[in-house]
């Protein structure tokens, strides 16, 4: 599967000449007997919007807290701009953090919260007011400058926290679940605002989140973390379209997994023997499999078409019965049960406003997909 990232696109990680802004070198962090981060190596580049994605307890927050300086690695080093930041205390690092709870000082006004870090820096007093004003207008909160944190809404609080952590123009901004406390609609709006601000200020952002949609929306690269290890580090489209493991495929979005035996056909084409009395699935893989290797064919529901009649132009077809229909407005998801008992999810966009519902429960339907629609995973 050829991936075209676009030559002009922002992709410093593909350029071996680029020096990373942050690099984790074989970092391990233990809390007592518990290993939170396990021998992790990772480079993050300047101006990246980098997302650490994983379930709670996977170690992503520990990674971030090590960058901020609240935790020290048990082994390994963390370099920022070529300098080992291990011995530098949090208040001396050119790194700022936006806390999940926002951690706004309740006894200070919005403006004083934003000025808090500036007053600790060597910025001359005369310039602080101007910088605060600048930050307030960046997050569109100029008229709330004298309010206290409890006098503004949750979304506004989130923006104050962002302005406060950006005020000192850090080399690196850490965002710990920055949108977790907002409702869905506001969260989506704020995601675009965040991207906009990141672009305007040119700051490197590292965001921690458990929300895969959020990570997909904002990030230039995503690191999927599990059990203290990096499972995959790649841009969102690659993570989604070319996951390197069942774990990633399953964690990001919806996926059908079919287990079978690989039979190499040609180049990177494989026939996947997945069921005794059914034609094999034909798929392609960048990754080589030997004959009779156990493999998992992963395919996204939206890449599976559903039709009443058997299509003639598709490589893979299978018949089944509609088990469930989930109408989501823009799309409908069909759960189709194959004669083998396996359930495959197929999605169809609801393009017309009022269309005749083509399928209903217990209808016999055909599922089909091309030979490049899915990926083959070994584990």
């Amino acid at each position: 599967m050829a991936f075209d990232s676009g030559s002009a696109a922002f992709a410093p990680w593909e350029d071996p000449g680029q020096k990373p802004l942050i690099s984790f070198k074989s970092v391990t962090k233990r809390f007592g007997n518990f290993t939170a981060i396990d021998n992790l190596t990772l480079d993050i580049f300047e101006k990246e919007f980098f997302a650490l994605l994983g379930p709670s307890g996977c170690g992503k927050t520990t990674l971030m807290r090590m960058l901020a300086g609240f935790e020290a690695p048990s082994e390994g080093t963390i370099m920022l701009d070529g300098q080992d930041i291990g011995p530098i205390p949090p208040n001396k690092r050119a790194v700022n953090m936006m806390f999940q709870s926002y951690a706004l000082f309740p006894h200070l006004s919005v403006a004083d919260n934003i000025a808090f870090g500036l007053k600790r820096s060597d910025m001359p007093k005369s310039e602080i007011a101007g910088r605060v004003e600048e930050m307030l207008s960046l997050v569109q909160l100029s008229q709330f400058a004298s309010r206290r944190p409890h006098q503004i809404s949750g979304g506004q609080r989130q923006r104050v926290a962002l302005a406060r952590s950006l005020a000192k123009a850090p080399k690196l901004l850490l965002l710990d679940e920055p949108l977790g406390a907002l409702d869905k609609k506001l969260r989506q709006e704020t995601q675009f605002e965040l991207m906009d601000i990141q672009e305007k200020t040119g700051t490197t952002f590292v965001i921690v989140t458990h929300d895969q949609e959020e990570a997909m929306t904002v990030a230039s690269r995503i690191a999927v973390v599990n059990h203290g290890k990096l499972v995959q580090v790649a841009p969102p489209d690659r993570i989604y379209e070319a996951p390197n493991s069942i774990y990633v495929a399953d964690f990001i979005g919806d996926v059908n997994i079919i287990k079978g035996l690989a039979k190499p056909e040609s180049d990177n084409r494989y026939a996947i023997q997945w069921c005794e009395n059914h034609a094999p699935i034909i798929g392609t893989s960048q990754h080589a499999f030997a004959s009779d290797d156990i493999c998992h064919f992963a395919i996204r529901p939206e890449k599976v078409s559903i039709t009443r009649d058997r299509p003639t132009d598709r490589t893979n077809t299978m018949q089944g019965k509609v088990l469930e229909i989930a109408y989501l407005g823009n799309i409908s998801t069909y759960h189709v049960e194959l004669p083998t008992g396996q359930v495959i999810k197929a999605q169809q966009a609801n393009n017309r406003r009022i269309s005749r519902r083509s399928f209903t429960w217990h209808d016999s339907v055909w599922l089909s997909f091309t030979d490049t629609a899915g990926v083959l995973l070994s584990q």
Partner: protein
Amino acid sequence: MDLRKLFLILVPYSWLLALFLIPFAIVLKIALSDYAIAIPPYVPTLDGIGNWSDFKTFLSELDFENFIFLTEDELYWRAYLSSAKIAFLSTLMTLLVGFPLAYAMARAASEWRPTLMMLAILPFWTSFLIRVYAWKSILSQEGYLNQVLLWVGVIDSPLMILNTNTAVYIGIVYTYLPFMVLPVYAALEKLDDTLLEAAEDLGCSRFQAFWLVTVPLSKPGIIAGCFLVFIPALGEFVIPSVLGGSDTLMIGKVLWEEFFSNRDWPVASAVAVILLLLLILPIVLFQRNEQKQREAEK
């Protein structure tokens, strides 16, 4: 149902009216009466008032003589002043001792906190009088403190601590310490740790973070603790009379002596009325602080 509600309101209401408010009216009335060698030892009394003119003569016999007397006699205003000074300074000292203790309790590992809380509360349940008394054998001339200091060689001859104001300060700090520790602890315990991390992240040293975040945010607790110590300390009687000397002037003691030794009820009542007036301001401030706290928590 309404009758039941009325009953529910009326019983505690009338109890408090009869045994709290009316007694104050009586104190006020006696404060305006004159001393008499009689039983009760003041005139006029309310007995035998049958009609309006009797009541008018009764009213006309009331005057502010006792209050004028209080201002003229140096003893009283010096007692008020010295009570205020002792209460203020000992509140400050209690804060100095109590804050680090409350801070350390709040910073302790969470599995230790209930035990530490229990240790801080336990003295509060123990008899006040006994706790004051315990210092008597420590502070006396041949007491344990002097024994230790002589043995270490810090001093050559025993210090005179018992029966001085120093002993009163120690006694107040000791007995009222839990009143300071508990509200301060409550405020510090609520303090969100991420606020301190945020302060450090924004460039504060730990010490700066303490002054700029911890102290301002524990202010309501500090204020509550200070009032809880200052208000009762101002009218304190037991501590100055057990640990203080004859020259320890505190208004609670003066009132007690005026009443029990001199049997001058009108003057004792006037002393009480003025003490109450002095306390109104701190009490109102305290209530406002509590109110603000409650609203902030909503």
